[in-house]
């Protein structure tokens, strides 16, 4: 049914906000294709020279590889632990659910600065050398709540009567999970895993404190930004956005399609 509500004022604010959100990013993408080192208009012509320069840089390739490893391991660990935890919280009526939810969702409300510092202090206290391992541990703590939020919501919406039926018909709990529960939440779980990957791939605030001597893509951008005004930062930024956007599009398509737009996609 067509709504009779009109608000030209809100419509204008919306258009202005969309421009505000997109324009700065569009400028970065545009200048990543610029043929000169100038970061100002007039835009003199397209060229892939900065892309060639970036892909010829060993430190860039190394940072990208590190980011891919960290994000993959974080996403897979989050997937396994997260599906288990979501199932546990959703299908139990235990009094422990409240305290557990508090523990699991704490990182969402805790600014990354404090999580990063607490981990730095802890790792130094137990004399664990900072490396990609410590980064991955930090990322799991950071992305886990978002995964849990989405997976738990999907399990809560699901009709658990089917599970009871399967159990009544003699399926073991393991069979119930694999043959009844998982097939119903699979798209959402894949979407949430892509989201976990994207969040980890892009993470800087925590990584900065727990990384040691290695580098990830956001750290590489950070150090480039500190050093110079280098046109190849546009290129690296564009590539970073491309990876996170593709993962996001996967997550969006898989988690949204069936459920309508959900707030769980938020931070």
């Amino acid at each position, binding site marked *: 049914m067509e709504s009779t*509500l009109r608000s030209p004022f809100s419509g204008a604010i919306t258009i202005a906000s969309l421009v505000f959100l997109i324009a700065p990013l569009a400028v970065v993408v545009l200048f990543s294709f610029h043929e000169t080192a100038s970061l100002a208009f007039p835009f003199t012509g397209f060229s892939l020279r900065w892309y060639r320069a970036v892909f010829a840089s060993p430190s860039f390739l190394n940072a990208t590889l590190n980011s891919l490893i960290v994000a993959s391991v974080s996403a897979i660990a989050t997937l396994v632990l997260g599906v288990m935890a979501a*199932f546990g919280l959703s299908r139990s009526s235990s009094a422990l659910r409240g305290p557990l939810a508090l523990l699991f969702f704490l990182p969402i409300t805790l600014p990354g600065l404090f999580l990063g510092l607490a981990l730095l202090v802890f790792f130094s206290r137990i004399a664990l050398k900072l490396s990609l391992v410590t980064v991955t541990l930090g990322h799991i703590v950071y992305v886990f709540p978002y995964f849990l939020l989405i997976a738990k919501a999907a399990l809560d919406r699901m009709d658990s009567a089917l599970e009871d039926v399967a159990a009544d018909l003699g399926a073991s709990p393991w069979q119930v999970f694999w043959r009844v529960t998982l097939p119903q939440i699979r798209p959402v779980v894949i979407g949430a895993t892509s989201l976990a990957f994207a969040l980890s791939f892009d993470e800087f605030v925590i990584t900065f404190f727990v990384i040691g001597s290695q580098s990830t893509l956001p750290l590489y951008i950070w150090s480039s930004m500190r050093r110079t005004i280098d046109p190849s930062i546009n290129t690296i930024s564009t590539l970073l956005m491309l990876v996170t956007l593709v993962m996001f599009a996967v997550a969006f398509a898989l988690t949204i399609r069936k459920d309508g737009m959900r707030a769980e996609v938020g931070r």
Partner: protein
Amino acid sequence: MTPGTSRRRDPVLLSFPAAMGFLLLLAVPLAVFLAYSFMTAGLFTVSPPFTFDAYARALGYGLNGILALNSIVIGLLAAAATVVLALPVAYWLRYCAGRWQMPCLFIITGSMFASYLVRIYAWRTILGTRGVFNQGLEALGVIDEPVGFLLYNRFSVTLALVHIFLPYVVLVLFAGFRPLAPAFLESAQDLGANAWQRWRRVILPVMAAPAATSFLFVFILSAADYVTPQLIGGTSGQMLGVQVQANFKAVGDWPQGAAISILMLLAFVACYGVTLLGLRLRRLDRIRWVN
């Protein structure tokens, strides 16, 4: 439930592996962090005795006061601007967008995934003396030479923070509008309520809680930011988070950095409590209008 259908083990056990991980990598580190704020920094070590010295140093250092004030001002400005912008956007998307709703939501959610650092970098490029903004003004003849006041101050930090948090808040407020079916607003309109009355009497009671919590989160996350001020804050736009980071990275006074962090966390918990209490006193915390 008959004994045959009841599960032998409580499924909550399945969340224990993750819970163990979170205790080890979240609860324990936060406890150690708290303990550090009471310890004393030696050469390469941090050790007992437990004292309030680090807090005394943190509070006695004049610069920290200025930086704290800056954090509060920038946090409040960013939070206010974000919520004020996001409310009409979420309203329009919910009630007026029609077939544009999904494309707009896709753009907004997509922009949320643009890297945090890339956003800061983008604003540095645009607002710089040789940036797009200055060039535009010059081309229009508004200015003769590039102006430097756009970048490296409170304004540029606030702008970048609004850019970072706007997509999240739009989505949260959009979800907040969900329980308010269009029919409620249409009825109010049909019964003669003008735009102001509809906002005041119909929308505000529903949106007070999501708007207040969004404000709170943008404020906390902005006030605790250490990256944006460091990259585009110049001297006037510096914030407390940068000082905390410096205590850990450059200065090496870990207890003082931990003490400042704990004080910030306490302030944030207080803000959180005040917001919840305010909503509860006005009975705005559990409104759920049905479709």
